[in-house]
């Protein structure tokens, strides 16, 4: 049940990112919508759920994107490895920690893409266009992440209640 819901949420986020956002003007081009999802799982959900979700989301993104196969899975895995224990070391309020980790994760993702493209094209210069993309993404992160945190908190709280209620009934 839980897995099915996560799959549906991942599919919805991927669909939003591949159909709605590319149709918007350049200034509205957003960041990888799955990053906040992965970060939320990394920080606030059990490790087993994290692993399941990176496999689903990473695999789907790799299949749909023109990026080299496995790069999204690689990025999401690194996000989990780097930040899984962040809550233990950084005593920040959940929304603040969430926002910081999302920003760092998006920078990591762009850095990995940039490195891949640099190696592929054998040019190591930071183009204005690339800097523009990253800047727009960061602006959108700062504008949207607090709302996304509230939405995720509500959705996952509701899922937990729903599943707990179902279990209680079955017992």
């Amino acid at each position, binding site marked *: 049940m839980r897995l099915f819901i996560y799959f549906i949420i991942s599919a919805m986020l*991927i*669909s939003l*990112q*591949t*159909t709605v956002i*590319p*149709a918007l003007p350049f200034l509205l*081009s957003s960041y*990888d919508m799955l990053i906040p999802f992965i970060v939320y799982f990394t920080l606030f959900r059990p490790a087993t759920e994290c692993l399941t979700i990176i496999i689903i989301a990473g695999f789907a*993104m790799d*299949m*749909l*994107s*023109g*990026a080299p196969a496995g790069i999204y899975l690689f990025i999401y895995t690194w996000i989990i490895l780097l930040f899984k224990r962040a809550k233990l070391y950084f005593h920040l309020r959940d929304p603040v920690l969430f926002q910081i980790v999302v920003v760092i994760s998006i920078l990591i993702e*762009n850095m990995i*893409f*940039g490195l891949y*493209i640099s190696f*592929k*094209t054998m040019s190591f210069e930071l*183009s204005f*266009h*690339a800097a523009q*993309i990253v800047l727009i993404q960061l602006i959108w992160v700062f504008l949207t992440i607090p709302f996304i945190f509230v939405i995720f908190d509500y959705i996952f709280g509701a899922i937990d209640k729903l599943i707990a209620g179902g279990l209680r009934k079955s017992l």
Partner: protein
Amino acid sequence: MFSKKTMVVAGAIILIALNVLVFSFTYIRKSSVGDAAARATLYLISPFQTAVSAVIDFTDDVWEHYFFLISVARENDELKKKLGIAVKKNNECNEIALSNERLRKYVNLKKQSPYNLLAAKVIAKDPAPWFKTMIINKGTKDGVIKELPVMVPEGVVGYVTTASSGFAKVLLIIDRNSSVDAMVQRNRARGVVQGDAQGLCRFDYALRKLDITVGDTIVSSGFDGIYPKGLRIGSVSKVIRRNSGLFQAIELTPFVDFKKLEEVMIILNPLIHDFVSNQ
């Protein structure tokens, strides 16, 4: 008391007397006395008339602008609804007209083209802004296989990199990973069209001695084993000839507007030059 006859006579006399009185009054009005009387009457009565008229106007105003407006507001709501429906319908008609225009182009292309073309709809684009791919709604069950070229009437779009049963992923020519063996249509100068960072293309490996100018059309050469010969790719927008080096740097503006792609055509029989059998 009075007989009927007497009553009739008296009535007639009163009527005649009244007539005389009215005629006399008309005559008096023309005189200065009559004029003064009329002015006095106007002076005395007009304020009342004005007041009554103002009350009537006020009542009329209140009725027109308040009570009557309730029905006007209702009517307005109805009209707004109708306008909304009309705007929606108009928009739908515009969409149909535009779609019709686009599809007409595709049908013409299909009729004129020597290739077996399959139309497909673009359903999604790459999730990352760094890469340029798209997903189309035709797959292996429609005869789409890997490495089939994709085009629109304006020119080359890209080629199929992955095909599932109902969908396929297309790598666009503006992606950095894409390369198309191409040539200048005017003088057949060869080079390779490669994707650029900002949704444009470069025409690489064109020798410095070759005469290539801004506005030249670049077409596919057919030697890359994917794209058939002669498909339009783009026009030269910038040429940089450095003092040193073997090649010139050429920027290319693709003929296809990749941001507005909605439908594409897949070439199912690309008629690729068969290098093996020719050797």
